[in-house]
């Protein structure tokens, strides 16, 4: 079983939705099978080594010819778009990424010698995931309805990589 299908099974969110009828008490055979809601991440693809848009830290050079080093401890946000009622925990499990909201980076970067007034910035580096969320209403093994989300995106920052530069 592939990692994707495994996480899809693990992360399957199933919930009892409703009973369609109201049989007499004691008549168990008269209860209709429950309707189940299944939420699954589908059409997943990913692209590694992507630079995030949010600046982790910025350092304004104050001594002409000086340098700035941005060190460890920067906190990068993990971003996961949700839809159709899927939870953060289920989406991250099915994407195969950590469930924490942030990642603390462990690396540093130094600027070259710069003019005073120049900004040296650090941004997160990570993997972007593209996917959709599929919602199916199932009863007795039969799919009653299927809904598909619009295309969604997630960014999973790396703890060991950052990108630094002037922009």
């Amino acid at each position, binding site marked *: 079983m592939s990692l994707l299908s495994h996480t899809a099974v693990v992360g399957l969110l199933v919930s009892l939705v409703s009973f369609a009828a109201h049989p007499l008490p004691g008549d168990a055979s008269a209860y209709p099978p429950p309707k189940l809601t299944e939420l699954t991440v589908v059409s997943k693809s990913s692209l590694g080594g992507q630079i995030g848009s949010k600046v*982790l*830290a*910025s*350092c*304004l*050079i*104050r*001594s*002409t*010819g*000086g*340098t*700035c*080093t*941005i*060190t*460890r*401890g*920067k*906190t990068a946000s993990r971003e996961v778009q949700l839809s159709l009622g899927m939870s953060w925990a289920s989406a991250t499990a099915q994407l195969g990424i950590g469930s924490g909201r942030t990642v603390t980076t462990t690396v*540093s*970067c*130094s600027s070259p*010698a710069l003019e005073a007034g120049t900004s040296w910035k650090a941004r997160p580096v990570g993997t972007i995931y593209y996917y959709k969320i599929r919602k199916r209403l199932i009863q007795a093994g039969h799919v009653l309805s299927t809904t598909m989300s619009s295309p969604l995106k997630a960014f999973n920052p790396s703890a060991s990589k950052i990108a630094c530069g002037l922009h």
Partner: protein
Amino acid sequence: MLCGVVLLAGCTPSAVPPASLIGATLDTLTAGPGADATLLVQDASPRVGATPSYSGDPDLDAAWRIVAICTSDPDVAKSAQIEVAVLPDDLVTAGVDAEVASGDFRDAVDCAGRPYHG
């Protein structure tokens, strides 16, 4: 026995003001109250006529002296962000020490978002 008395009195660890780290070596900060913060290190060597050489190697932090500092909290230990300007220890002469003491290096740090100046 004394510790027990202090604990019973509800004593908390005293705050570390940023000014207390001016003149200290960088490892005093990075291995101490600033260990968990995001740290920005400005190498101010050109101000004393030297080429910047700070590499970010924490094993060499003891060879660097803090000449300016600002933090995001009045207590260094509670600061999420700390910015320091440093000089190699061997370039900190008595004259440089005097300049640091008189605040000549205060503008060697930017302090945006880190309003507590040393």
